[in-house]
């Protein structure tokens, strides 16, 4: 069988050349390892910087400066029969002027009035409407200050800077300090960020509308993509005949997963809005668009999970005389379910973060009411972020970062669930 083994010169492993070479090889190892560490470090560092800078710049949005004033809700200013229609604007101003008797003149007073947020009068009105007994009394209420003063309170306005390129004049700063000395300034947690809907005034804006919009959109997306996705995946993997048609479909689905999201936006714009005439900016359309993008993810996840079920199980079931659909429903699907769920959650997480297509279908409108249903115009978390990011006021920078933190919180939660599922159910065959 083998030829007379022509004997080889036995290797002398102690040959210094070999030894040197060996040392070199080990150094090579160390180098490779080092670059690896560096690369990984870089990646982690990036994430760190990203999170850090967002949290840092967002931190101010989690608190809001308030000034506590005593409002004299006199019966003549607010008619008892219809509290909603009172002259609250003057009430609020009077309350502020009371602290600055020295300030005279219309223009000065108007400037002084700018300390308070526009929302102050609405807040007072809501309070009074909520319980009319207050009419004829004085009401103690903490109302938000307007953005420039909020910035000032949070030390973002540098009083030493040249007056002309400050948003606040020395005089205005003086007023505010005065209020501070009187102990009327407080900076509680800014629940408005979650509770309020969008607004032109940073100190008043909130994510309520965006959250509901995203919720409705994801709901629609889930209701469409989950059943359809699983059904398609199972069909393709288990029942579809293997011919060029199914091959074609397969290729298409795999590609769909990698098609740029903006293209889906165009599609939705042309089809859903252009042809079907569905309402612009509606979570319904958004959800349908996102469904288009989530579908391939779920289909692929389903097929992968189904493929991962070892054929030996299939054989076993067939071997005892199970019919094909019994094999699928009784063995394949249950074993594949964790994988499918994981895929779905990840898909939804992506959908939650998708922006471009929603922009194209107009879910970036300025809407101050949270949507009542899937057909109302609404924004979504990511689009809201985009809008704020575009807004000029300084206050929106912090607000945007804060909104992003909220979004990330949701995403981390969802991914955590997915990872948990994967760990919990991963099985070695």
């Amino acid at each position, binding site marked *: 069988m083998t030829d007379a083994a022509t004997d080889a010169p036995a290797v002398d492993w102690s040959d210094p050349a070999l030894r040197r070479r060996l040392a070199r090889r080990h150094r090579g190892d160390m180098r490779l390892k080092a670059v690896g560490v560096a690369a990984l470090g870089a990646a*982690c560092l990036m994430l760190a910087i990203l999170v850090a800078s967002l949290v840092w710049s967002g931190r101010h949005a989690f608190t809001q400066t308030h000034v506590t004033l005593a409002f004299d809700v006199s019966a003549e200013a607010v008619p008892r029969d219809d509290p909603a229609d009172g002259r609250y604007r003057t009430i609020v101003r009077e309350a502020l002027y009371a602290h600055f008797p020295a300030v005279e003149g219309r223009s000065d007073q108007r400037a002084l009035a700018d300390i308070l947020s526009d929302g102050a009068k609405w807040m007072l009105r809501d309070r009074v409407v909520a319980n009319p007994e207050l009419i004829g009394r004085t009401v103690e209420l903490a109302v938000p200050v307007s953005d420039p003063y909020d910035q000032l309170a949070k030390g973002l306005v540098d009083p030493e800077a040249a007056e002309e390129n400050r948003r606040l004049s020395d005089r205005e700063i003086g007023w505010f300090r005065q209020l501070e000395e009187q102990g009327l300034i407080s900076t509680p947690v800014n629940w408005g960020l979650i509770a309020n809907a969008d607004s032109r005034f940073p100190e008043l804006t909130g994510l309520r509308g965006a959250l509901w919009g995203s919720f409705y959109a994801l709901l629609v997306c889930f209701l469409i993509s989950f059943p359809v996705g699983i059904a398609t995946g199972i069909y393709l993997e288990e029942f579809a005949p293997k011919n060029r048609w199914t091959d074609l479909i397969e290729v298409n689905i795999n590609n769909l997963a990698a098609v740029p999201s903006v293209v889906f936006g165009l599609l939705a714009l042309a089809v859903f809005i252009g042809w079907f005439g569905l309402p612009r900016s509606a979570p319904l359309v958004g959800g349908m668009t996102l469904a288009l993008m989530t579908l391939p993810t779920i289909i692929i996840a389903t097929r992968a999970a189904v493929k991962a079920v070892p054929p030996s199980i299939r054989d076993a079931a067939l071997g005892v005389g199970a019919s094909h659909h019994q094999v699928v429903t009784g063995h394949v699907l249950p074993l594949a379910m964790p994988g499918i769920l994981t895929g779905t959650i990840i898909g939804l997480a992506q959908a939650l973060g998708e922006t471009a297509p929603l922009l194209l279908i107009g879910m970036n409108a300025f809407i101050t009411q949270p949507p009542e249903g899937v057909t109302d115009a609404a924004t979504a978390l990511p689009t809201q*972020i985009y809008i704020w990011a575009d807004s000029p006021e300084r206050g929106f920078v912090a607000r945007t970062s804060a909104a992003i933190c909220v979004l990330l919180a949701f995403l981390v939660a969802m991914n955590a669930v997915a990872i948990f599922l994967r760990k919990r159910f991963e099985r070695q065959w």
Partner: protein
Amino acid sequence: MSGTACPFRPVTEFLFGLNWEPQIPIREGQVAAEGAFGWIPVLVGTLVITAIALFVAIPVGILSAIYLNEFASKRVRGVAKPVLELLAGVPTVVYGFFAILTVAPAIRAAGTAIGLDVSPNTAMAAGSVMGIMLIPFISSFTDDALNAVPRSLRDGSLALGATRGETMTKVLFPAAIPGIVGGVLLAVSRAIGETMIVVMAAGLIATLTVNPLDSVTTVTVQIVTLLIGDTAFDNPKTLAAFALGLMLFIVTLCLNVLALGVVRRYRELYD
């Protein structure tokens, strides 16, 4: 449709035209500033940013994957993998904001420090942030490809006296290359199609340049800017946007088909 002739420009102008100025006649019949729709500068801009992104993502992604796959201890892997997944899960709009909030100013500062003038929305910012976004993408593809290589090969190499590094560079990595290439191709198509980062961090003006410090615009930016706000379906802006969308779709489609083909064939190698 209303009288403008814009929709009926020769396709060649769109495909080979060297300037892109999609200003719109404000009023009917105002012929003065009629937009020019040559997509080449837009395409070049896209490619520049893509290139920058890959330049960042490929080395970092692949190397970190190699480290995790071969050298990292169980604990390091336990930490690093979720981190990367998190990085992958971050929405693009966040990256976009990150770019304008942190990266662009940083680059600018750096640029001015060494006496370069860097445009406010430089391709560098958008590109490098997009690169960060692609790191986990590439590294997970590389990791999968490396894991798909049967463990027995690793044992075989080690048993011949190869060091771990040699095993990686001479056996595992070569065996995984097809899979990795597939991953990179997908990354490219994703970079080309990426929208929010560029919309927020890149420029709007289509200038035909390859200087990474200049401001360039991309296909997706144009699509979005042209379509934001209520626009009727028959005006040239919209149609131009759709044209760009079509091109975008075709290009990415080709890339994907190629990539998936590569990956599939490679998978069959070991199944």
